[in-house]
């Protein structure tokens, strides 16, 4: 145990004595979260929606058809009660629910106006905004082309409601993504670099010719970064809570546990990278290209996954960050518990085990 603690202590010395490491560890996360607190616009296709038709007459059918045949939306659920609306949103598949009031056609004929409610999941502020705008313009077109063209002075009043994030704050979307990105980068990149550095400096040669086994070497390397990454995650959450006033609806302890799991996953990925690289430069390149870019582009952080080409959607399923973003959004914005995000949690845990087993297998006890 003393051997191991000696090793961990040495790692902390390395970190605290290198100003560049310190800058990447603590300067970058704060800068990124502040920079990414802005919105990037994007487009939509094939958004899954639900329809709660209280009236079920020919007009509501026609409007539903118009919406689903527009190419932007896919009708995935027919709902039958108000309660179900909340439920389908929690599942996270459906982005928007359209509610027709009862006796829709009748009211339209009798009073000349009827109401439609458009409810959107605004935890992803951009998508919610775009989705509701599209829906409204389809309804407006229908009124103009079908009703007014026939000389019917009817009016349909859409009422838009944003669920979970009614102020449409873009930062809600960026905080989870930035958190994933930073933890991935700090944990995976820094560990892989620090192990590669031992190889590059030749100290690995001396470590190998010591009674220290590979596992303690690797774990000793990882622990300091685990501690520091966790501090980082707490800083990010605190920043988003106090600076951007992002809510934390769910259990904070649960959120931190999930974060810890993600950090652990990123660290094991870092170890795996280091087994494949003999110099700091190679480790950094692999981390950059294999981790940072895909995490930014394919995890749903910047571009919604449902708008990607099929191939990229496939790729995104192997991005650990994708699942972490879903988890963080659910916990922070919707207040979900393990009952909702168990699947994502399991996937990340599985990836962790996979990376760990791979890296222990690949760790060389010799120089070749």
């Amino acid at each position: 145990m003393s051997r191991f603690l000696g090793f961990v202590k040495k790692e902390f010395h390395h970190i605290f004595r290198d100003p560049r490491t310190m800058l990447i560890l603590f300067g970058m996360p704060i800068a990124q979260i502040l920079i990414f607190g802005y919105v990037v616009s994007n487009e939509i296709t094939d958004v899954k929606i639900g329809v709660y038709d209280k009236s079920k007459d020919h007009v509501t059918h026609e409007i539903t058809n118009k919406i689903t045949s527009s190419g932007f939306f896919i009708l995935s659920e027919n709902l039958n009660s108000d309660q179900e609306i909340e439920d389908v949103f929690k599942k996270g598949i459906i982005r928007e629910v359209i509610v027709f009031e009862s006796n829709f056609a009748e009211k339209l004929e009798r009073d000349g106006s009827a109401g439609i409610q458009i409810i959107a999941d605004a935890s992803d502020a951009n998508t919610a905004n775009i989705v509701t705008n599209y829906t409204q313009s389809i309804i407006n077109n229908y009124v103009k082309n079908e009703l007014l063209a026939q000389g019917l002075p009817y009016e349909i009043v859409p009422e838009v409601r944003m669920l979970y994030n009614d102020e449409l704050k873009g930062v809600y979307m960026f905080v989870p993504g930035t958190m994933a990105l930073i933890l991935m980068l700090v944990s995976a990149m820094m560990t892989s670099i620090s192990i590669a550095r031992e190889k590059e400096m030749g100290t690995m040669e001396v470590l190998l010719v010591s009674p220290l086994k590979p596992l303690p070497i690797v774990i000793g390397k990882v622990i300091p970064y685990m501690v520091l990454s966790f501090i980082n995650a707490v800083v990010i959450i605190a920043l988003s809570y106090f600076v951007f006033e992002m809510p934390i609806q769910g259990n904070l302890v649960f959120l931190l546990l999930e974060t810890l799991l993600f950090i652990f996953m990123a660290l094991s990925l870092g170890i795996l990278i280091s087994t494949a690289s003999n110099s700091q430069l190679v480790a950094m390149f692999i981390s950059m290209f294999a981790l940072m870019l895909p995490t930014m582009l394919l995890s749903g952080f910047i571009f919604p996954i449902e708008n990607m080409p099929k191939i990229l959607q496939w790729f995104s399923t192997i991005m650990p960050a994708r699942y972490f973003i879903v988890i963080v959004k659910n916990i922070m914005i919707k207040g979900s518990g393990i009952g909702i995000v168990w699947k994502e949690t399991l996937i990340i845990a599985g990836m962790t085990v996979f990376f760990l087993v791979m890296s222990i297998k690949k760790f060389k006890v010799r120089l070749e």
Partner: protein
Amino acid sequence: MNEIAVEVQNLKKSYEKEEAVKGVSFSVSKGELFGLIGPDGAGKTSILRIITTLLFPTEGKITVLDSDVVKDYKKIRTNIGYMPQRFSLYQDLSVEENLTFFARIFGTTIEENYDLIKDIYSHIEPFKDRLAGKLSGGMKQKLALSCALIHSPDILILDEPTTGVDAVSRKEFWEMLIRLKEKGITILVSTPYMDEANLCDRVALIQNGDIMSIDTPEKIIGDFGQKLWAVKSNNIYQLINDLRRLDFIDTVFPFGEFLHVTSNTEDLNITELKSILNEKNHLGIKIQQVEANIEDCFMQLMTK
């Protein structure tokens, strides 16, 4: 005293297509100071890395303290102290932190083995708070040696410990090695400096992955078997060319400010040689018979 510490039998090592070590055999007795002497690229580092279990041998059987380097590598690793060719300590840790770290990973403390390293460590102890990266070359080597010794290994393996170190530090370093040998530690050291061979009990002369000769330095010098002259003039370059053109001259190699020359004939007529060189306009000619040293032997073995 004659027990075997390291036994190497027909060791071969290839990197992809290149054969770096071409079947060498030697053994190091316990308590011996054994030197692998040869120029850069001769295969010294490969041999030492295989003995320290860091590389696999392509062929051959190597045992360290009766343990096989492939099968029992874990056992060997606890019994050897290894100092790689490059300075491989943590440059961003202080002298004392480095030593403490290596003591701890070997499950010991500085105090426990202080006797063993006292001689060496006392030189650098005044700088124990300095970062290792800021030490001079000689001090770095002393620190590396202290770290390799901190767990009191049975065998010390040093890969070119004095390369890039000034002459005074080199001398000090070898004095330390000899004192360690007196404490009963087996030492296997590689070096490109021929003059260091004389300080070893036995040496193996290595060239291009082959051992040319293994023996005590005295014996190797005794086997030289030719008389040797040191020749000098004001124009060394011209002198090399002129001497090589003379048919009674066997070999000519530069050695410091002199040329070391052997003859085809039993003896060399110094006055005759002087007059020949005078005719070729050489000035300040000096010729004297000298004793052969290891480098002369190495050159002789190389040309065979």
